[in-house]
């Protein structure tokens, strides 16, 4: 049985860990003190780079690399802590804020030290009123204790942290939407480039980092790169010769919800399989796994054939899904996938910021199509179109044959792909919200096409058995195209 590896969450349940005194008793701020006493700022950045830490907020971008893009000669620079946690199925940042806010402050201090940043904004999801209250109280204590403000502990370092509540928009979790909102404007993502690292808050270089990402920093500084990189797989990117190391190091705060017996946040080393994770969370509630969302509602769904996929950044990407925010939603045999997709599409149609044409009008269109199908009003007409499958040479592609498909399913797929194309990974939108819409839409429909077809055919929401509802592996585009990465150790 896989054990939890509690590092970020080690002291989460210690009574009163949210207070300075108790936090201090548990090594609080000593990691920061160690950083400024023993390392130069650049040493800290190098450690972060070497640790292989990848952003935990969704994109999984190398934190060290992101820091290296920040021009050091432009003042001021800012840190934005992304605490807008709104991805459905994700709730790990919230516990940090509510229960152990000093850990976040310490993480911020280390980042500020490494990057020479004096001002940090923590953008907190508006609904997190308790989280904001707890963080604000901790900030006050930290100021009182001299860990924030001017000339912290006589080190000459100045850091100020401001907490800022969001106003209830998912898109303000997207880093540039967040920045716009922070600046007092409508939360609408910016065109990139320039990236925030170069032009962020008030058009100055800005590091945007998720709560969980920042909470990793005290431990990397304290226990070192070697210790850190022992956790989680380091794959070899075989496109390069010799293979380039692709670290998926550290732990992840997996948020497990849905049909498991013990839903909650589990801190585990990266790289466990989906099945293992379900076991950790008390096992499946119900008879059979029908589907798993591996990385928040935006992530393409996995069928029960794909449960051996390792839940880390690289493996999931190569399985045509993503680890995203680490929000894992398990569905058992009673769930209807059409209904699930409807639920998710209602969310996205409501949350599109409305800036770009395809997303603004495409997302509600997708929702309406799914709604119509779920209402039993899917059109019975079918169309004929080229059939994709295992083509000549054993690779996925146009088979040269044709297939019949309900007009509405073709439409659903096509409209979603016109917002952002999941096959070519190209999007006609400003931000990747577009792909967060088409990923679920297309993957649910393709992987559980029989259930969609049955619902249209029967004229009412129809739940099939797991076996009947799922397309077989040989017809599953993702399963057929997935690549299972090899660890460096295996590559020799």
């Amino acid at each position, binding site marked *: 049985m896989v054990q939890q590896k509690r590092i970020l969450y080690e002291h989460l349940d210690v009574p009163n860990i949210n207070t300075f005194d108790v936090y201090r008793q548990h090594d609080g701020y000593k990691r920061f003190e160690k950083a400024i006493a023993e390392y130069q700022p650049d040493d800290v950045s190098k450690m972060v780079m070497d640790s292989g830490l990848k952003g935990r907020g969704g994109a999984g971008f190398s934190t060290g690399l992101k820091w290296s893009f920040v021009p050091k000669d432009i003042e001021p620079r800012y840190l934005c802590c992304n605490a807008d946690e709104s991805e459905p199925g994700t709730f790990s940042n919230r516990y940090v804020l509510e229960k152990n806010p000093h850990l976040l402050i310490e993480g911020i201090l280390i980042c500020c030290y490494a990057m020479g940043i004096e001002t940090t904004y923590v953008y907190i999801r508006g609904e997190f009123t308790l989280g904001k209250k707890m963080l604000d109280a901790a900030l006050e204590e930290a100021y009182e204790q001299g860990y924030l403000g001017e000339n912290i502990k006589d080190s000459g370092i100045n850091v100020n942290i401001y907490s800022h509540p969001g106003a209830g928009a998912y898109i303000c979790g997207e880093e540039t939407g967040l920045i716009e909102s922070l600046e007092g404007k409508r939360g609408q993502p910016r065109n990139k480039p320039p990236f925030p690292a170069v032009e962020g808050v008030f058009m100055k270089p800005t590091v945007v980092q998720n709560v969980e990402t920042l909470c990793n920093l005290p431990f990397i500084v304290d226990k070192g790169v070697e210790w850190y990189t022992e956790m989680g797989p380091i794959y070899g990117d075989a496109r390069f010769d010799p293979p380039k190391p692709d670290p998926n190091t550290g732990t992840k705060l997996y948020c497990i919800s849905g049909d498991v017996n013990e839903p909650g946040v589990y801190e585990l080393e990266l790289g466990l399989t989906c099945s293992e994770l379900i076991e950790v969370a008390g096992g499946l509630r119900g008879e059979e796994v029908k589907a798993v969302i591996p990385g928040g509602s935006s992530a393409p769904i996995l069928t029960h054939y794909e449960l051996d996929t390792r839940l880390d950044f690289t493996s999931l990407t190569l399985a045509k899904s993503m680890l995203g925010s680490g929000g894992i939603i398990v569905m058992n045999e009673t769930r209807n996938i059409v209904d699930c997709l409807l639920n998710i599409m209602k969310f996205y*149609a409501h949350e599109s910021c409305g800036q770009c*044409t395809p997303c603004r009008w495409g997302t509600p269109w997708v929702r309406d199509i799914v709604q119509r199908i779920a209402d039993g009003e899917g059109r019975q007409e079918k169309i004929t179109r080229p059939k994709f499958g295992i083509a000549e040479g054993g690779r996925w592609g146009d088979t040269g044959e044709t297939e019949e498909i309900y007009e509405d399913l073709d439409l659903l797929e096509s409209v979603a792909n016109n917002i952002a194309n999941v096959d070519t990974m190209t999007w*006609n939108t400003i931000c990747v919200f577009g792909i967060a819409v088409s990923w679920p839409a297309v993957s649910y429909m393709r992987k559980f096409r029989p259930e969609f077809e049955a619902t249209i055919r029967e004229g009412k929401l129809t739940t099939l058995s797991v076996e009947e509802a799922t397309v077989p592996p040989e017809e599953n585009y993702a399963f057929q195209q997935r690549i299972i990465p090899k660890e460096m150790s295996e590559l020799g």
Partner: protein
Amino acid sequence: MAFIKLNDLEIEVEDGTNIVEAARQNGIEVPHYCYHPGLTRPANCRMCLIETYGTPPGAPPGTIAPDRQLATGCTTTVRTAPPERKYEEKFDAIIRTDSPRVVKAREDILEFLLVHHPLDCPVCDQAGECDLQDFSHRHGRDKSRYVEVKNVPPKKDLGPDVLLYSTRCIVCTRCVRFCQEVSGTGELGLINRGSHDEIDIPRSHEGNPIQVLDNKLAGNVVDICPVGALISKDFLFKSRPWFMDKEDSICTGCSVGCNITVEYKEDGVYRVKPRFHEDINQHWMCDDGRLGYHYVNRDDRLQLPLKKVDDEQTTTQWADAINTIKEKLGEVEAEDIVVIGSAQGTNEDNYVLQQFAHDVLNTTQLGLFGQLPGEEHKYPQFTIESDKNPNTAGARTILGSANGNVVLEGEDLWQKVASAKVVYLVSGVPDRKLQDEEKAALENVEFLIVQDVLPSEITELADVVLPGTTFAEKDGTFTNSTGWVQRIRKTVDPPGEAQVDWQITQQLAKQLGSEINYSFAGEISIAISENVQGYEEATHQNIGDAGVKLA
């Protein structure tokens, strides 16, 4: 200059040019909605997608392939690359606007743009000059696949002249950006989110306006709205755009001299729109200028000469009016005559007038009349000037050109008028109110000749009224406050027997035995260029559409 390959063309463009403009300069259309050259570029409509080429990461040097993502043409700029970064050893960029991916992307975006659109072109003012119609026709698919319910956001009254048909809005935010960036007044914003985005003015919870779209530049939002969402009440349901003729001209509302297009039919002027001039008005004009044309169409325009008989003005024939004037002029000495030109008149009008004064009447007593000064309005990217005449600078120089530059204005003028026997006042100023001293002075004149376009306090005092013409009815030039000489062009015919002002003056001159004999305004401009210092280049031919700046 950057050297780029655009589709199959090899072209040079200025560094920093974006692809929409680079293509436009070379006759290629890159459809777009949110991009407007006078505003910032949010790249939100996603209509101008293009295919850029580069060397894929990891590929051997020299490899050229389309980049994975399409780029927005409005935000993709080209500049000269260092030699080692050139493609095919010469191009600074390689771009396609016609690849299958681009073509498909355009079709897809247009399909999205139309899903909630009411398709009410038959009753939409914009039809015929609508980017949504045009681009759908040229770049769209012929059929929509949308069978769901359409959004029907409400029609809104935004301000004195602007209506919003929200259903037609494609949320390009041009109007919002205009009010932020150019007028700086910020009345417009987006409310709601996503597919429920609506343009609106600030309102209370009950929906009552807190601020309305009434800044003096508001009308521009109607021009820049690429669809029929923002509509001018002034023009609402008046005409289909293709039924109107168009002529380039200059606004007469103030001394800025905004470049305009006058749209007209036989029965009058229908609409005035700004025309781009980089150094003067860019893309914009103000609402005073825009809505100021109505006087041209007024039913009470002066159409026949008037003559005072027994203190009553009655209409008369041109020949009689001119004869009456000729007789009167024969009775007085040159020093008893004052000739007053107009800052609303063209350089040509004023040139013939001063020639008449000097050569025929032998008087050096020339004055300048015009609209009273108004308010100056400064906006972040636009200023409306306080001098409400289009041609003060030109009239002043030209009236004074043979006179040692002595042109009477203000108090000096009215003093002179008060003691004159005959005054020939060319006004053409619509609805000019007289100040007390002006009125007193004019009442004192023994014989007052007024040349004007509308009945007014001034024409009431006149012994003879000569019906002149507005800017819409003649050719000529104006000189604005920054020294640009620009052309106005005839659109509609003058009402009744009204005549072009310089022609009236020329007729008078001829009656008095003069040789002055111009046959068209351009000929006068040649005379001006030969005789007026600074105007050497300012012939109609040179001025063209762009104007000539005085040295």
